[in-house]
C-alpha cells in the first residue's frame, strides 16, 4: 500500500456513484407513470426529507430520539400560521419553518443533549409532548384539536399555483428534497460528518482526540431539526392544512420504522424505506381497511428478523456474498 493509493481512496469516496441518480430518475418517471398517485408522491417526497433528518441524528450521530416530530410540527405550524395570517409566499414560509424548528432544536438540545441513552430518549419524548400540549392549549392561535384551517398559499414565484391534482406540489417537494439531500450528502462526507460517525462508534475516543463532542452533537441536532422543519412546512403548504397530529408522537415512531426498513446511517435508507412503507400502507389499507396496520406490523417483524440493517443492509450482504464467490 503506497501513500497515493490510500490518499486516493479517500479522495474518491465522496464522488458520485451512478446509482445515486436512481431515486431521482424514479421520482420523475413515477410522475408520468402514475398520474393518479401524484398527491401521494408529494407526501412521500416530503416524508423522505423527514426521514433523512432522522437519519442524520440517529444513523450518523447515534442520538436515539423520538422527538423529531417536535421539529416537524414546528415547521408545519410556522408555515401554516404565516399562511393564515396573510403571508402565503411558500419559499419564505419554508425558510421560516426551518428557522423556527432549528431554534426549538437548539434550545431544547442545549438542555437535553447533556444526557445520553435512555435518559435522552425520554427527554426527546418530553420535549415533543410538551410542545404538543402547548399547541393544543393555544387553540385561539392554532385551532387546537380542530387543526389550523384556512391556509392560503400563494403560487411559487408568483407563477406556479398549487393545483388540485398536486402536480405543482410534486415538483415543489422534489426540488426541495433534492436541495436538502445535496446539503446532507455534503455534510455526511465532511470532516464534521465523519466526526459524527466517530462519536457514534466510540464517544470516549472522540473526547480523547480533543473533539468538542457536545458542540458537535448540538450542531447536528439543530441541522436535523431545521430539515424536519422544512419537511413539516412543505406538507403543510402542499396540503393547506396543519393538524395536531403533525406533533403526534406516533409520527416520530413511524419515521423511525420507515428508516429502519430502508437502512439506518446510510443516507439512502430514507429513499427506500419511506416509499416502501407509504405505498404498502396505501395498498394494505385499500385491500384491508380495518386490519391494515397488522400487515404493516407483520412485514416489519419479518424485516427485522431476516433483514437486519433494512433493505440496504440486505443489499450490502448480498453484494459481499457475490464478491466472495468470484
Amino acid at each position, binding site marked *: *500500500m*503506497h*501513500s497515493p493509493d*490510500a*490518499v486516493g*481512496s*479517500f*479522495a*474518491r*469516496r*465522496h464522488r458520485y456513484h451512478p446509482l445515486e441518480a436512481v431515486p431521482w430518475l424514479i421520482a420523475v418517471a413515477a410522475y408520468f407513470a402514475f398520474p393518479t398517485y401524484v398527491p401521494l408522491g408529494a407526501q412521500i417526497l416530503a416524508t423522505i426529507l423527514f426521514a433523512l433528518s432522522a437519519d442524520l441524528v440517529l444513523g450518523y450521530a447515534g442520538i436515539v430520539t423520538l422527538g423529531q416530530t417536535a421539529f416537524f410540527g414546528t415547521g408545519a405550524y410556522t408555515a401554516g400560521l404565516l399562511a393564515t395570517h396573510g403571508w402565503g409566499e411558500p419559499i419564505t414560509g419554508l425558510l421560516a419553518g426551518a428557522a423556527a424548528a432549528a431554534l426549538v432544536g437548539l434550545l431544547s438540545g442545549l438542555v437535553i443533549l447533556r444526557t445520553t441513552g435512555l435518559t435522552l430518549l425520554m427527554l426527546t419524548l418530553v420535549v415533543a409532548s410538551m410542545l404538543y400540549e402547548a399547541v393544543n392549549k393555544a387553540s385561539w392561535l392554532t385551532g387546537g384539536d380542530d387543526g389550523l384551517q384556512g391556509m392560503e398559499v400563494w403560487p411559487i414565484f408568483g407563477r406556479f399555483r398549487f393545483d388540485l391534482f398536486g402536480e405543482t406540489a410534486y415538483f415543489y417537494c422534489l426540488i426541495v428534497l433534492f436541495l436538502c439531500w445535496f446539503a446532507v450528502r*455534503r*455534510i455526511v*462526507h*465532511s*470532516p*464534521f*460528518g*465523519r*466526526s459524527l*460517525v*466517530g462519536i457514534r*462508534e*466510540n464517544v*470516549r*475516543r*472522540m*473526547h*480523547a*482526540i*480533543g*473533539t*468538542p*463532542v457536545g*458542540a*458537535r452533537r448540538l*450542531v447536528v441536532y439543530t441541522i436535523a431539526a431545521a430539515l424536519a422543519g422544512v419537511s413539516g412546512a412543505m406538507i403543510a403548504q402542499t396540503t393547506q392544512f396543519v393538524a395536531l397530529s403533525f406533533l403526534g408522537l406516533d409520527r416520530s415512531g413511524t419515521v423511525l420504522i420507515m428508516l429502519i426498513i430502508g437502512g439506518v446511517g446510510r443516507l439512502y435508507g430514507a429513499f427506500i424505506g419511506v416509499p416502501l412503507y407509504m405505498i404498502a400502507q396505501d395498498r394494505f389499507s385499500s385491500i384491508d381497511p380495518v386490519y391494515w396496520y397488522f400487515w404493516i406490523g407483520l412485514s416489519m417483524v419479518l424485516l427485522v428478523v431476516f433483514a437486519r440493517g433494512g433493505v440496504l443492509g440486505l443489499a450490502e450482504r448480498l453484494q459481499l456474498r457475490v464478491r466472495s464467490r468470484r
Partner: protein
Amino acid sequence: MSAPALETRGLTKSFGALVVANMIDFRLERGARHALIGPNGAGKTSFVELVTGALPPNAGRILVEGADITLLPRAARVKRGLVRTFQITALFRGLSVLENVILAVSERHGIGGGLFRPAGNYRAAIEEAFALVERLGLAEDALRPINTLAYGRQRLVEIAVALALMPRVLLLDEPAAGVPSGESGTIIEVIESLPPDITLLIIEHDMDLVFRLAQRITVMVQGSILVEGPPEAIAADPEVRRVYLGERKRA
C-alpha cells in the same frame, strides 16, 4: 527551573467509601520516561482519567507545564498536548486504520468541524495520517477496518492515534496489555523510538517493559503513592517487593 510537564497537587477522588486517589502529589519532569505501577485496583487508570478530565476530582489541582487545567474540559486538555491511550483498545472498530488516524489529525488541524467540504479533499491531513501509519509499520493495513486486525496491530493503531495529536505529555495506559509476548517487541520499539521531547508516563503491569523503558518509577497502592525512585531502588525496596513484586511472583 522550568515547571514540570505534568503535576498534581493533593489530587483526590472517591466513590463513596472507595478512595481511588488519595492526596496524590505527583511530578512528571519534562522529557521523562516515567512508569506508574501498582497492583490491580491501585487507582492507576483512575489517575489517568482524572488527569485527562474524564473524571472530575473531589479535590486537588492538575497542572500542565505550570498552567492549572483542573477545570478545563477534555478537548481543551488535548489541545494543550495532554494525550492518553486506552488500556482496553478504544478505536473506531468499523473504520479503517487510516481513518482512525485521520479523525485525530483533523481535530488537531482544527478542521474536524468543517461542514461542507468533503473530508477527502483535505489532502494535507490524509497524507500526514498516512505518513504516521507508515512510520508505525501499518501501511499494509491502512485501509482495513480495525476489527479485522490482530490485537497487537490494534495496540499500534492506538499509539498512532495518540501520536497524531502531537502530544507533549503522553499517558500510555498499559500499551502492551493483552498482546502476545512475541508481538509486544514491536510496541516496545515504537515507544523507545519516540522523540525525547515527548514526556512519557507509562502505566504498566509488565515488569520487563517497565524496567526496560522507565528511568523513574512511581508505585501506587490503594489510591496512594507508596514510593517513587529510579528502577534499581524500586526493585530493591522491600515494601514494594512485599505489596507488588512478590505478589506477582506468587500469582
